[in-house]
Structure formats: structure tokens, C-alpha cells
């Protein structure tokens, strides 16, 4: 992490906002748990003033809301960080974490898993999560290799698009042939934290956090790589191997996020984009700032997703897109106005 002064202030403010969002999210929901009880449950050592009024509140907070909150925050962090890195690698502020076909690969694998009725669990993770992770990760590897080992970002981009379309078509085919599973598959592709568990948090958090730390560690190189391959090589960067490192780690993070939450759009696109505009392009600060902001954004989106039409839930991917898309269009208009 490398912050200039005002960035340090922004970072601290964001941490405060994140904490506030966590408390808010723990308090709101279809079951009405009083704030005082929430505090007593979260900080039992403070609860001198008597016991929690209902034991069921404890279950709601500790077993249902908290894992969901943590998972939303972790996933948002992961998507935003890998979005920031993908935008840097592709030298394109409109890139996103799914650019190498991770989303279509994961969705195809999930559709297959559902159609085949896979049940196995590994490390407490269900078959669908595992299919999503492997589908997403392997797809990026395939894209990387058919693009000629990442010699140019342009061929990576084109291979990603091609494979993405191909797998989406295969997924449609699987859905068409397994109509009884259509609802499940579609629901999964819209993204949801509905089935959050502590196990999912425990498996995805290390992947995403260790990945983010690794990315931060080499983020200085990413700054230089943004200026172009030849330019970066002449400044001493082993561009191809460094690019592979960034792609591998951020793909790992994205696949980890997708496996526990489905395909959630716009977080990885909008969050780093906005942070870059507000706090500058230096990845040493952009990555940690995007990380915290992504956590906040997705947590707030998920909180809206489960409260707006309560007790019905809206898939969180719909919320992020409803908020993200108009914002994205706004950015496009802004860009157009900048170019005379």
C-alpha cells in the first residue's frame, strides 16, 4: 500500500463507512431485531445491561446475517480488486473481471452441474460452487493459451470474447435441453448471497485476501505496464511473466468470488473506474481503495436486495446492474464530452 496524504484520509473514511454499513446490514432485514440486541450479540463482552431478548435473534444475526454480510463484503472486495487489475492489464478502463470468459465458463459449468444433478461436497463447498470455480478458472487458462500465451493483450481480449460467446451458447443449449433446471440456472447467473454460510466465508476469504495482498505487492509493476509492453520492458519489467502472474491471481480471485455468489456484474467495472477518477491511477493506492469500496458497494447492494421487496429477495446482480448501468452510461457521456 502506498498512499499520498489525501488518499490516506479517503481510505480511513472508507473503512469507517464499511463498518457502518456492516452494522446497518446486521440490523435491517425481514426479521425485526432491535439495534440494542444486535450490539449485544456482536459484542457479548459489552452486554452488561442484560441478555438478548430472544434467542432466535442470535441465530438470525450470527448464522444468517453475519455470514451473508461477510460474504458480500469479501466478494465485493475480490471483484473490485480484480477489476482494477484487469483494467490495468488491458490498459482499458472499461475492462472487467469477466473479460477472460470467467463468467461464461463458470455459468456453463454450473448449468452442467445442475443438469447432471451433481451433489458432492469438498471442504464443505457444494458441487455448484466447485463447478463454478473450476469452470471459471479453466476457461481463463484456455483463453490465455489460445491467445498465444498472452503475448499481446489484444489477442487475449479477442480470445476472451470468442470463448465467452462459445460457452454462453453451450450454456443456452444445456438449459434448452434441461428445461426443468432453467430457473435454477438463471437464478444462479443473476448472483445471490442467499445461501451464505460461514464455510463459504472461510473458503473464499483467504483466496481473495491473500490474492489481493499479492497483487498489491507487485502493483508498482502494473503502473509501468500500463504505459505499454515495450515501454515496460525497457524499464526492466518481465512483462509476459508479470502479466501471467497478475492474470492468474486475479482470475483466482474472480473465480473464488463467482463460486460463492454467482455472476455479479458492474462491481468490478464501476468501482475501480470511479476510484481511478477520484483518487488517481496509481495501482498501489487504487487496489486497496477499490477493495474497501467494492466491499461497501456490494454489501449495500445485497442489503437492498434482501430488504427492498422483503420478504421477497431480488438477486443482487440485478441491484448492482440497476445502480451500475446508469452510472456507466453517465461515464460514457462524460468521456464523449471530454473528446471534442
Amino acid at each position, binding site marked *: 500500500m502506498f498512499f499520498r496524504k489525501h488518499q490516506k484520509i479517503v481510505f480511513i473514511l472508507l473503512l469507517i463507512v464499511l463498518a457502518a454499513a456492516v452494522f446497518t446490514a446486521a440490523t435491517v432485514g425481514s426479521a425485526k431485531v432491535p439495534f440494542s440486541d444486535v450490539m449485544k450479540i456482536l459484542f457479548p463482552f459489552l452486554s452488561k445491561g442484560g441478555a438478548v431478548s430472544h434467542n432466535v435473534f442470535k441465530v438470525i444475526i450470527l448464522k444468517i446475517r453475519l455470514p451473508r454480510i461477510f460474504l458480500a463484503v469479501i466478494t465485493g472486495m475480490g471483484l473490485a480488486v480484480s477489476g482494477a487489475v484487469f483494467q*490495468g492489464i488491458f*490498459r*482499458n*478502463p472499461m475492462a472487467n473481471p469477466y473479460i477472460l470468459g470467467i463468467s461464461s465458463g463458470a455459468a456453463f459449468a454450473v448449468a452442467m452441474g445442475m443438469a447432471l444433478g451433481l451433489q458432492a461436497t469438498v471442504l464443505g463447498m457444494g458441487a455448484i460452487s466447485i463447478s463454478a470455480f473450476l469452470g471459471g478458472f479453466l476457461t481463463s487458462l484456455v483463453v490465455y493459451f489460445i491467445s498465444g500465451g498472452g503475448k499481446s493483450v489484444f489477442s487475449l481480449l479477442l480470445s476472451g470474447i470468442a470463448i465467452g460467446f462459445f460457452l454462453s451458447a453451450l450454456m443456452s443449449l444445456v438449459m434448452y435441453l434441461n428445461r426443468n433446471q432453467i430457473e435454477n440456472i438463471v437464478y444462479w447467473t443473476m448472483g445471490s448471497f442467499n445461501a451464505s454460510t460461514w464455510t463459504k466465508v472461510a473458503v473464499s476469504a483467504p483466496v481473495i485476501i491473500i490474492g489481493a495482498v499479492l497483487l498489491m505487492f507487485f502493483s*508498482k509493476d502494473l*503502473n*509501468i505496464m*500500463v*504505459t*505499454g509492453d*515495450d*515501454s515496460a*520492458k*525497457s*524499464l*526492466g*519489467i*518481465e512483462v509476459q511473466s508479470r502479466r501471467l502472474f497478475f492474470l492468474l491471481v486475479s482470475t483466482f480471485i474472480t473465480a473464488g468470488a463467482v463460486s460463492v455468489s454467482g455472476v455479479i456484474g458492474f462491481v468490478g467495472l464501476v468501482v475501480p473506474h470511479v476510484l*481511478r477518477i477520484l483518487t*488517481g*491511477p*496509481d495501482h498501489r493506492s487504487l487496489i486497496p481503495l477499490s477493495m474497501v469500496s467494492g466491499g461497501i458497494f456490494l454489501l449495500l447492494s445485497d442489503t437492498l436486495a434482501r430488504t427492498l421487496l422483503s420478504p421477497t429477495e431480488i438477486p443482487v446482480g440485478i441491484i448492482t446492474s440497476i445502480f451500475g448501468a446508469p452510472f456507466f452510461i453517465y461515464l460514457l457521456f462524460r468521456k464523449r464530452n471530454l473528446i471534442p
Partner: protein
Amino acid sequence: MTGSAVTLKDLSWSYNGRSVVNTIDLKIEKGSFTGIVGPNGAGKTTLLKLILKLLSPEKDRVFIFDRDINNYSRKDLAKKISYVPQTINVDFGFSVQQIVSMGRNPHLGLFSGDPARDTEIVNKAMRETEVEALKKKDIGSISGGELQRVIIARALAQEPDILALDEPTSHLDLNHQIRILSLVRSLSKKKGITVIAVLHDFNHALEYCTSLVLMNKGTIEAFGNPEAVITPERMKKIYGLTTSIEKNPFTGKPYIINEYV
């Protein structure tokens, strides 16, 4: 041991089976200001990229300070030789100062470093190239000539032994063309930096270069003292232009004038 900064031995390169650099032998002296001239497509940029390991030459073809370029890590190479490409990607909103600071990259360890010294070197490079006033500006919002000077500042901040420039004056006004080339020459003289510059202006080549490579169709047509390399016969043969060599009344050096077709 040859004692030269750059040695090329029987070096060839082809793009997709098309030969672009053809069996070149060349020794570039330490401390020289070596120009590379030649028509469009002659292979000048390709030659420069081979010297910078931006293309991968075979073993035992390119030597930097008598060491095979393939035996250098990129980082070690970047400490020896810096590159001024014609342009870089400017879409990401880095400031001039941030870009120039990137020149320090090869000298930075993962944890060690002397930030005060780095800042001093970066500031000096910006002063020398007259971009200090722009240092807070987004590199996407400066002029082509300003950007070129920023890239040169970055290359200077790299503190190289060899400075490789690809048409460093192509976007500069006449004043800055002369200033930049004079700066590069004075660095070459003061610090013994070897300069390798692709140039298109023969009068600049005659004025600044201590030796000159004239390339044509992937081979070296002539190499040596600029005054010996640039002759009306060669200009006719390679460029198809009738020229005359005169004496520059300001410097006493030769300069070239040409017919217009």
C-alpha cells in the same frame, strides 16, 4: 573483448518470414553519439528493438558491453540502456512526474531504496528536458512534443550508460529539436553516455553524431564518420534525390541541401 558499448555480429531478423534486418555487423563505440539514418522501412526501429531485447535475437548476436544480451535480466539491462520510444500509452491519467519517476524502476529493490535521491534524479531529469512546469499534468493532456520530452526525461532518470532514441525529435519544434539533441550530446560528453539515435534529419546527423549508420533495406549501406557516410552519390542511390553538401556558416560543419521534386 572489444570494449564497445554495443556489438552486433551477423545479426538478422525477419517478421513472418520477411527479412527486415539482414546479416548486420556493427560496433558502437563507448561514449559515441551514433546516428542511424535510412529510408522508411529500412529496419532502423527493428535494429533498435533488437539492441533493447524488445525483440529476441539469437544467442551470440547482440552484445551489450561485451555480454550477450540474452544473459542480461531485463532489470540489469534496464540499468545499462534506456529507451525513448516514439510514444507510449497515455490513456491512464498518470502525471508527468509519475511517468518520469518510473525511470527509477530498474534501480529500486523490493524494500530498499533511497527515495530522496530518486526524487532528486527525477527532478533533475525534468529540469533538463524543460518539463518541470508540467509535472502535475496528466500525460494524456500535454502536446506531442511535450510528451516526447517527458519520455526523454524518463529515460534520463533511468541513469543509463546507453541511451537509445527512436526519432526523438519527430514531434518537436525547431527550438526543442536543437535543445534536446544538444542536451543529449552534452550528457554524452560529460558522463560518457553512449547515444544511439534514429534520426531522419541529415543536418542533425551531421551536426551531432560522432558516427553514423546508413541503413537501406535491412543492411548497412555505410558506417563511419557522418561526413564520410553522407555523400551526394549515396543520397542519389538510396533516396533518389539530388543533393549538395555545403558548409554551415554558423558551425563550419557540412550541411546538406536538396532539390525538390
